[in-house]
């Protein structure tokens, strides 16, 4: 086997050493990392720009809608108030106490042996309306007290069909001093005063109970 001498081995070794120079490799590696980081940062900057643009758009929309929404809220409140007023007015008109049917009933109830000398009444209350009626009169007959009593009970019976909690009581019932002529006969009389209480309408709904803390 022939002996071969590589006289350039030192040069080749130096070249190899130069090629595997750690400083150079480190610089390459660091440059790569730096480039990666810079790219990532740039990407994030682009993202940020897009997000800022989105925010600007959304904020612009919000700024445009906000005054409109406030104005709408005010309008809605005003409309709600007006609606409530409308309902309240309607309720007032519908919940009125009607005297005409009561007077009509009274006309039918009073017999010919009775003369009403005074009738007065008033209505109070908002939800449930309470009507107090005072009927003063003169009854005549063989038993004028019974005539008055019949009137009192018939008032209670007749009104109970139409109104709530009807009470009909005598405030006063006394024998009269005068005699009257009825059907060609002299009849004794009695003076009476009847108090009638009756209720109509719906009660207001109760306020919701407060929650206990």
């Amino acid at each position, binding site marked *: 086997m022939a002996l071969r001498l590589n006289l350039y081995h030192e040069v080749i070794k130096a070249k190899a050493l130069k090629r595997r120079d750690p400083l150079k490799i480190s610089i390459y590696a660091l440059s790569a990392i730096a480039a990666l980081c810079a790219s990532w940062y740039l990407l994030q900057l682009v993202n940020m720009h897009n997000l800022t643009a989105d925010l600007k758009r959304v904020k612009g929309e919000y700024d445009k809608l906000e005054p409109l929404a406030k104005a709408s809220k005010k309008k809605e409140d005003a409309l709600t108030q007006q609606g409530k007023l*409308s*309902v309240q007015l309607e309720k007032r008109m519908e919940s009125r106490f009607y005297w005409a049917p009561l007077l009509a009933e009274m006309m039918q109830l009073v017999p010919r042996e009775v003369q009403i000398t005074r009738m007065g009444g008033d209505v109070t209350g908002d939800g449930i309306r309470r009507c107090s009626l005072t009927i003063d009169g003169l009854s005549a007959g063989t038993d004028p007290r019974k005539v008055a009593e019949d009137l009192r009970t018939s008032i209670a019976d007749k009104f109970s069909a139409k109104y709530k909690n009807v009470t009909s009581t005598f405030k006063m019932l006394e024998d009269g001093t005068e005699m009257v002529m009825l059907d060609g006969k002299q009849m004794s009389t009695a003076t009476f005063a009847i108090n009638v209480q009756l209720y109509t309408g719906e009660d207001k709904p109760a306020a919701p109970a407060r929650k206990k803390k």
Partner: protein
Amino acid sequence: MKDIQLGKEEIQKLVLGVLLFFGLIYSYFDLLLGPLSKHQDAVRLSIVALGPEIDADKAQIARAKKMEQEALITQKTTRQVNAMIPEGSPVAWFPTHMAEFFKKQGIDKALTRMNGELPDKELPGYRKLVWGVDLPKVEFVPFAEAVSVLENEEPLFEIAAMQIDASREDVGAQHALLTLNNIVRQ
């Protein structure tokens, strides 16, 4: 494999290089990427937070529009009531109105005077006036008919009290006194 022999100076350079590398990495994350990330998160949060508010505003505007369209129906009563109340001071028109009404019902004399005003918080923009209507000579049946017509034709009037007295002079005639509540504009 050949052992790498590092001198003191080289080790110092290496340590310094490593320190510099970590310093740069730290600076990159802490001074550049970190604040950017935080800013991005804040912007995202702002966008997310504005979303429901925009939705709520849109819903509010839609609701108001719908109510506005429905207002024509819901405020019908108010418009009708306003149309029923004549212009001007009630003292000027109410007594005349009552006198004319009872005259039409065959009751010639009706004296009306204002008794006062009742507060009514449930009806803003309106007030309730109390009137006394004196009918010195009425017959019961025409009077009851007049009351019936009044209650049917005038929904803003309510008879709060009434008193009917038999006249001593004229057996067929009664003296009636009505207390009327009337809703008028403020």
